């Protein structure tokens, strides 16, 4: 339903981004926090022009989010959100186009559109609500579920290896790759802002708890007792240290990362790998992507990589401008006449 509010002249607030629809996720679902952080962050990213924001989604619990955000929204079909959003953005590059999607939606049925979006560098902000399960269809394993997972469709344990979504995004050429956690609101807000500020495909993986079908999937990263030892906060130009007392660090041995103890005296902060978000080559990002799968390592959170290159929508627009400049605005009569005509009198 439309919201007939006046064009705002003062800065919007989170409330302006709330639609009149009841939010219908399960009580306790991590999606609530993500929605809240989105609504809190949007006023900072898009200062006044709420009408220029479009949320596109596929199908899944996560994909319901457009109904709850009072902007333009398109709840598509399963897996196709990146393609629909590409059409929106190419049609009007002035719009801020966001994609909300789930691990099934983006990485199972929608995998192809995802990698092609990354390849083309379409200027879309993709928020992946990764709960490592199919929520809406009531609990089948997803392409991010761990191997051996027991679910309704894998009563004896799934035989599929999971994707590493960050690795896949990097492998397909994404220009902005980051990760956040639903219950870490400040950091999540920052990541949403960073994604929103990126020109090009911004891929933000958000670990999201599905308390009904996959409760505690990220508890190592969210439980008070364990989170400090298991999260590595990435910050550009900062050494990669972690642990409650920041007493552990990551060091490179060739191309192989190793964990070193900073309390023994053998290593100092200077030995520690320094994060470089802006490296032209995706090697460091790939190293960080892969330590995620290694239980010995902490899970990196933050921006893995951000580089600049021309966007797909931008290139289409420039090409139109260029050709129009060169050949003049199209003349329909000329086009209909073509190269070869004759007269009948």
């Amino acid at each position, binding site marked *: *339903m*439309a*919201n*007939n*509010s*006046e*064009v705002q002249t003062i800065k919007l607030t989170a409330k302006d981004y709330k*639609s009149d*629809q009841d939010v219908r996720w399960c009580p306790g679902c991590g999606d609530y926090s993500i929605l809240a952080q989105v609504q809190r962050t949007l006023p900072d990213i898009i200062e006044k*022009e*709420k*009408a*220029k*924001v479009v949320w*596109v989604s596929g*199908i899944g619990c996560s994909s319901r989010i*457009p*109904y709850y955000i*009072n902007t*333009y*929204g*398109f*709840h*598509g*079909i399963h897996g*196709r959100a990146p*393609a*629909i*959003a*590409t*059409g*929106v*953005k*190419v*049609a*009007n590059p*002035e*719009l801020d186009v966001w994609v909300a999607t789930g691990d099934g939606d983006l990485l199972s049925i929608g995998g*192809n559109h995802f990698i*092609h979006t990354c390849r083309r560098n379409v200027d879309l902000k993709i928020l992946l609500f990764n709960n490592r399960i199919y929520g809406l269809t009531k609990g089948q394993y997803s392409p991010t579920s761990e191997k051996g997972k027991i679910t309704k469709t894998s009563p004896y344990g799934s035989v599929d290896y999971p994707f590493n979504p960050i690795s896949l995004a990097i492998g397909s050429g994404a220009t902005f790759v980051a990760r956040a956690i639903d219950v870490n609101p400040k950091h999540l807000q920052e990541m949403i802002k960073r994604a929103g500020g990126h020109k090009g495909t911004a891929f933000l993986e958000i670990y999201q708890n599905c308390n009904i079908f996959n409760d505690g999937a990220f508890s190592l990263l969210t439980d008070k007792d364990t989170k400090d030892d298991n999260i590595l906060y990435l910050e550009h130009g900062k050494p990669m240290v972690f642990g409650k007392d920041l007493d552990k660090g990551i060091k490179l041995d060739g191309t192989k990362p190793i964990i070193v103890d900073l309390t023994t005296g053998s290593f100092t902060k200077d030995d520690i790998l320094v994060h470089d978000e802006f490296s032209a080559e995706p090697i460091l990002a790939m190293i960080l992507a892969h330590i995620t799968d290694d239980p010995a390592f902490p899970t990196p959170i933050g921006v893995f990589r951000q580089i600049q290159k021309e966007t797909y929508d931008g290139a*289409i627009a420039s*090409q*139109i401008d260029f*050709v*129009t400049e*060169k*050949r003049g*605005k*199209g003349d*329909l*009569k000329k*086009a*209909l*006449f*073509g190269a*070869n*005509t*004759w*007269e*009948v009198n």
Partner: protein
Amino acid sequence: MPEVKEKKIETLSDVTVRFAGDSGDGMQLTGTQFSDTTAWVGNDLSTLPDYPAEIRAPAGTLYGVSGFQLHFSSSDVNTPGDVPDVLVAMNPAALKKNLPELRPNGTIIVNTDSFDPKNLKLANYERNPLEDDTLNGYHVHEVPITSLTKNALEDSSLSLKEVSRCKNFFALGIMYWLYNRPLEKTEEWLKIKFKNKPELAEGNIKAMKSGYNFGEITEIFTTRYKVDPANLPKGTYRNISGNEATALGFLTASVKSNLPIFLGSYPITPASDILQYLSNYKNFGVKTMQAEDEIAGITAALGAAFTGHLALTSTSGPGMALKAEAIGLAVMTELPIVIVNVQRGGPSTGLPTKTEQADLLQAFCGRNGESPVCVIAAQTPRDCFYQAIEAARIALKFMTPVILLTDGYIANGSEPWRIPDIEDLPDVHKEFRTEKEGFFPYIRDENLARPWAIPGTPGLEHRIGGLETDDITGNINYEPDNHDKMVRIRNQKIQNIANDISDLKVYGDDSGDLLVLGWGGTYGTLKDAVHLARKNGYKVSHAHLRHINPFPKNTKDVLKSYSKVLIPEINLGQLASLIKSEFLIEVEQQNLVRGLPFKTEDVLGKITELLGGNNGK
């Protein structure tokens, strides 16, 4: 110099020629030149290229034969001709493949140079057909085209390979002489085409002139023919193929509606041309996206439709199947989009380079749920232009997906087209909603179309999607009554289109013994067949459906005015089943699913069979 005998000139009203040779022999080009010149001298015409399925089949093989058929006349031409009167065969394979279709008693011009043992073997000829009785009953002109071309270009600076490539222009020259056509159009064209390689232009021109002179001078040809100009409406003409016409129709709709085109498409034979043509019109603001697959093509187009563009997607059969789910989304979100299906032989990958009409039912109901869309079909190459405009017009006016069906035959075939005045073309337009007062995304106008409020419009923020929507507010609604209502509204909206389209027209009398009812690319053939049958005294008429969902309002009345209805289709009876189910009338069917257009004589034969040999009397 030999003595030049005065040659006889015979006037003909109607000729069909076919150029055939190896894929590398330039037959498409030769045919196109002959067409252009023929159009320019004022004949009506229709053409049909016939490419091999392979990209470049090995030289000399049967499956490497490329053909171009052209039918021209001093009166109306509706088809590229059933059977060629003249066959130009550049090699044995071309002869072998095309001979069965030549008219008995027809004329053959062969390039004897290519009838060597190797080429004969490649063509599966055990003996040289020029030397046995294979060609008995035909007028055969044996011409050593390759060597004559070489002789003619002896002094040129071209390489031997280049010289040999000019032989098709020698053949063209002969044909120009034979049919009394001027050389200047082709000369001009060659000069422009090879403006950076003038020696090539010259070589080809010389070859062509030599061919022309060869006809004039030698004794081989005793007669030449004249086909007078047709009585065509005044105006400026061009040749146009169906796919080009489709592209230009959309371009016109875009200019008229002031909406930039967004075409999301994935290449597929025989539809790729539409994407290719439209990619050229960047300076019209046309946005083309070569998507990763057909699903991305249509869903991106839907995104662009939501955002206020003239949204298009083009494909052929298998690609159409892939778009099914997304067409359902278009139905539910009520966004305007035109989906073009250039039909080819099926099922599955089928016969990619052949024509067929077997995707009609898929267009009707190839989706889950009650998912009605508007379906229209173009009937000739140039009609593609008008139906593309019509499809866009309906999509925008009714906020609905429209499926435009064409087929490989009219998509690749071409015919002269009197270029219309832009002002005379139908109005295509749609206002965006900007007024906040009273806005709801699923409120409807008198046609039941919902408003188009595009992102960026302040105050009209709203959400759409594939779940059942609440009447008026567009919110998600799972209520039984709302669903039943919305199912009927979506259906009624499509039915309402019947109020906005022209009546089904009849060629022939308003009633009679038989109505031949068709749709799509069989138009020309059915028209010709009915025309001939009427000449023979049969009480038969012809009607051709462009709008298939909904049918024109007078369809039932038309059908009921004849004792019998015959529906010829290049499928097993798909329109027939729709007609039977809708109007509960018996119909006769004629179904030939051969990957080829119908022949006039097939249909004429069926008419005669149905009405009895005694001219229906």
